[in-house]
């Protein structure tokens, strides 16, 4: 890359902002669906998950990009996995140390970041062929794109399934049928199928707003 290119050139800005909508890892690339189903019952775990992925993905992108010319092609997947696994263990330890309650809920899924398709996808598709700085931006952009969808899904599921947002009760207690009201939480929202359906609906809306994403037959 020439020195003339500034840190936030149009090309670099694209790396951050494209994954938010037009090139979203979940609703367009359809990667990382498993964790979108697993951690989106409540918003809090979804938020912590987003942060963890943000850290792991951006750092892993930079590290792999730094050593991209040293990695023998045939064992690159293993090298990438080692990098990711190291970072995931670090994140897991930090969570255990500072937010133990959430870490207890999340530790299984944090471990599973290793197999999150977004990470492998970005390392393979971007970091292996680009310099550290664009790779860093790409990691941040994709992690945010992932996080946005995660938070939307978690918002819908927590509001309708548990009547709260970020743990704060939104639906007044008096509305519930057991207290003489008329309302009842939707039990289906807490089950995983509803996460899949919510993601499906988001994809539906996203595609009808961005016609160019629809494949031509």
């Amino acid at each position: 890359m020439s020195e003339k290119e500034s840190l936030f050139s149009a090309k670099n800005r694209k790396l951050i902002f494209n994954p938010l909508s037009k090139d979203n890892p979940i609703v367009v690339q359809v990667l990382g669906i498993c964790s979108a189903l697993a951690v989106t019952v409540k918003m809090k775990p979804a938020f912590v998950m987003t942060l963890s992925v943000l850290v792991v993905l951006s750092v892993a992108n930079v590290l792999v990009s730094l050593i991209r010319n040293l990695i023998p092609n045939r064992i690159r997947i293993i090298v990438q996995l080692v990098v990711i696994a190291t970072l995931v263990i670090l994140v897991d330890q930090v969570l255990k140390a500072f937010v133990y309650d959430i870490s207890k809920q999340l530790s299984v899924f944090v471990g599973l970041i290793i197999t999150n398709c977004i990470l492998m996808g970005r390392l393979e598709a971007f970091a292996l062929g680009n310099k550290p700085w664009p790779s860093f931006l790409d990691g941040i952009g994709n992690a945010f794109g992932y996080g946005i969808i995660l938070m939307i899904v978690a918002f819908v599921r927590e509001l309708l399934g548990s009547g709260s947002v970020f743990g704060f009760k939104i639906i007044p207690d008096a509305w519930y049928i057991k207290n003489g009201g008329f309302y009842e939480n939707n039990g289906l929202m807490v089950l995983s199928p509803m996460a899949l359906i919510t993601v499906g609906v988001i994809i539906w809306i996203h595609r009808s707003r961005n016609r160019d994403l629809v494949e031509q037959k």
Partner: protein
Amino acid sequence: MKFIRKQLDNIKPQVQKGGKLQAFHSFYDAIETLFFVPKKTSASGVHVHDPIDSKRSMIIVVLAMIPALLFGMWNVGYQHFLSLGETAELWTTFLYGFTKVLPLIVVSYGVGLTIEIIVAQMRGHEVKEGFFVSGMLIPLIVPVDVPLWMVAVATAFAVIIGVEAFGGAGMNVLNPALTARAFLFFAYPSHMSGDAVWIAEKADGFSGATPLAESAAGNIQNLPSMVEMFFGTIPGSIGETSALAILIGAFILIYTGIGSWKIMLSGVIGGLVMGLLLNVFAVNPSMEVPAIHQLLLGGFAFGIVFMATDPVSAAQTSTGKYIYGFLIGFLAILIRVLNPAYPEGVMLAILLMNVFAPLIDHYVVQANIKRRLKRVTVKA
């Protein structure tokens, strides 16, 4: 009829392109084809002209459900007065049930048709007829005490996610009415199962458990007699209790050729086979329920006659229909008896087989092609 034609002709210019009320075009179209056979004929290709269109065939299905509906209304009142320990006149009983069931029907049709019309308008096609049947099925397969807004939410879910997302009526993989019921069952379990919801305003001391729940709990000594179950004077979802009323519906469907007798017959056989198999092993009380009883319990008869035969979501090939029906009956009893958490196995079995119907058809067609190919292969 002439009067209606005249009124419709008066309005017509306004809803056509450029008219003032163009936004209501789909709605007008729906009303017009409801009263009169559309004048459109195919210009080429098909030359068989038959006035029966999907609107008319759907109406026949609704007619076939009327006996179950009327009986259901009466039974709602009957169960109510029974739980209070009172006796009431036939008409009082029926009217009580009528006032309980009518709101469910209004909500189900209101929500479903509103969404259908909006979508038809947005996509610029006619209002599809599929919801005629679903709108009547939904009230018949819920407990009488279910809150109306839950029915509205479930109907909206079934129409939007179950039907419109797949491209509208006729393209849906799952039966919309059962999608709505499954949604209710998993979203609001406390209002779809248990002892309290099956009888309207029941007295506290009276056990309102359905025979199906008693059977799942293993209390088979509490099961009502065959006669009661056949005529349907038992608690349960509104339309599912009376095997007699359902048989009348089945007769109408089979006589008019709208419902497939192959699916119904093989479904009943599948249920019987599984029932008998369970009787042979009979390690717990609910496995000892006689196979014939299983056919009368819960929604089995209703599901096999009205939902399994849904022409959109069922298998299309002739052999496929036998396989599809048999597996529905077989799985329904299997789920019901061996998984006490989901006593209403009929719903799950039909939904599962809805998903498998295209696969069954595919293999039936492939087998046919292979068989015929063998015939033409020339020995080298």
